[in-house]
């Protein structure tokens, strides 16, 4: 590190020069100038005494909520406080799959809206998030599964989402490496959502951070929230490792830590925290150009632009806040992968990691006011919150700005559990370890 650390620019708001628009012409110009003209994409801020809105958590949802508040709802007096560096939580740990192949119609509509926002995101943010609509393919292995998928496909079509059926021949033509007759679980056919795909996860954090910062949001790193201060039944701010920060509204966007943060206000949530693992192999030549999901177990895989095979499976299935992952799940994931794509057996796994996630009791997220005035949350994302970042951020910003849920997230209110209106997405009941 030869460059001395730059002083934080917060008290000199005009010292930060915006990064400017990115374009092919700009790239060319910078290339001719030896790439000396690129500027920092977002401003590292020091905490001020108070803000209209403090968002806890600098992951995808926290940064997106801040971005939409500042750019679409006219609220720019906003801070995002993050205990580490931004983007190193689940937003930087997930397998980057986007899709709207959900079961409950409310969730299909929400996730398809998110997919539409992904489709325009790079223009919106002027940032290359590498949104790749390569298609998401699901295999089915029994008649019952086929019927279930037909039902789901029809629900998706009713909600305006896309879904096509593939027979065995079409599937084999699309994915030559697939094994249709692996003995125990022969593949009967598949469904595909052509608009599904993958996104460069880190770029999502950076792109939203840049857009939020340029609209005036303070992004404060290495600032852990350790308490929620309240007076007269209202939240008044957050205690942090860098002092108290006052706030009119506090939004929790802390992924696997929602129970922990809400607990600071004495609120118990319908959530358990579980770990999900991911794996990436050594890089190989183009092998798979869609996202493939194994219907006879829990396995999904895609190939990154660097060539690595990125894959994962089921959650570790016991409460944990440890970002490690248990070995038997890793073995199970490998076995399922080899059953579906036998050529994977020759690959070496380069890296394995885990993230900890809020698993809600009904598998549906929670974008909601909490039972303390001024406190809201954007969480409960289970293992599927990456694809939800644009819509989750937008609708959480709507909730903060208007004080009521966006119509797409009316079913995500935390009051649904007491009201008997749970939206049981996996159909397994209140047993998160079984989702």
């Amino acid at each position, binding site marked *: 590190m030869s460059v001395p650390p730059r002083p934080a620019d917060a008290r000199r708001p005009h010292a930060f020069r915006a990064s400017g628009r990115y374009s092919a012409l700009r790239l060319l110009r910078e290339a001719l100038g030896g790439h000396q003209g690129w500027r920092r994409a977002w401003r590292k801020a020091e905490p001020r005494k108070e803000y209209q809105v403090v968002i806890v958590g600098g992951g995808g949802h926290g940064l997106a909520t801040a971005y939409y508040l500042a750019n679409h709802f006219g609220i720019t007096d906003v801070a995002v406080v993050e205990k580490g560096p931004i983007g190193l939580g689940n937003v930087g740990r997930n397998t980057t799959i986007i899709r709207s192949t959900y079961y409950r119609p409310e969730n299909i509509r929400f996730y398809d809206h998110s997919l539409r926002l992904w489709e325009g995101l790079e223009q919106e943010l002027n940032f290359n998030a590498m949104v790749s609509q390569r298609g998401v393919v699901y295999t089915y292995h029994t008649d019952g599964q086929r019927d279930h998928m037909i039902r789901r496909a029809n629900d998706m079509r009713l909600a305006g989402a896309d879904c096509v059926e593939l027979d065995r021949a079409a599937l084999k033509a699309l994915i030559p490496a697939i094994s249709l007759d692996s003995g125990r679980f022969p593949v009967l056919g598949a469904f595909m959502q052509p608009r599904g795909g993958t996104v460069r996860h880190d770029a999502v954090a950076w792109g939203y951070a840049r857009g939020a910062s340029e609209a005036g949001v303070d992004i404060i790193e290495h600032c852990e929230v350790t308490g929620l201060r309240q007076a007269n039944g209202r939240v008044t701010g957050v205690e942090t490792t860098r002092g108290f920060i006052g706030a009119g509204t506090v939004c929790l966007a802390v992924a696997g*830590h929602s129970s922990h943060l809400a*607990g600071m206000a004495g609120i118990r949530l319908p959530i*358990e925290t579980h770990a999900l693992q991911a794996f990436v192999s050594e890089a190989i030549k183009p092998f798979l150009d869609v996202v493939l999901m194994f219907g006879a177990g829990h396995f999904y895989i895609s190939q990154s632009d660097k060539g690595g095979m990125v894959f994962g499976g089921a959650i570790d299935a016991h409460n944990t806040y440890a970002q490690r992952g*248990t070995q038997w799940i890793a073995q199970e994931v490998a076995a399922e992968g080899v059953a579906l794509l036998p050529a994977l057996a020759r690959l070496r796994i380069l890296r394995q990691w885990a993230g900890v996630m809020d698993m809600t009791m009904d598998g549906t997220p929670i974008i909601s006011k909490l039972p303390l005035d001024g406190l809201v949350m954007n969480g409960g994302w289970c293992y599927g919150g990456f694809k939800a970042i644009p819509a989750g951020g937008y609708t959480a910003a709507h909730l903060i700005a208007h004080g009521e849920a966006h119509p797409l997230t009316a079913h995500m209110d935390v009051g649904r559990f007491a009201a008997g209106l749970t939206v049981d997405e996996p159909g397994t009941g209140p047993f998160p370890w079984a989702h």
Partner: protein
Amino acid sequence: MLRITCPHCGVRDEVEFRYRGDASVQRPPADADAAAFVAYVYERDNPRGWHHEWWYHAAGCRQYLQLWRHTVTHTIHAVGTATDTLTPPHGMVDR
């Protein structure tokens, strides 16, 4: 991989067991109000720390066991049968 010492079967790998959730929640009496049942069915402390929980030894004795396990370090403080009274880790109270 967790290694759980089953009181009936001895030390076994986690893969033989099925996790069955928070053991601290108690079913309210039948005449309790709806809020008590909502809390029982859905709301959890979900601690980042010691957790009192059920495990089912599916591929062993097929008995329900209770554990005190730490959700960050995964240290297992105590294992017992469903009816045992376990001594909680220091500073923890059993509800």
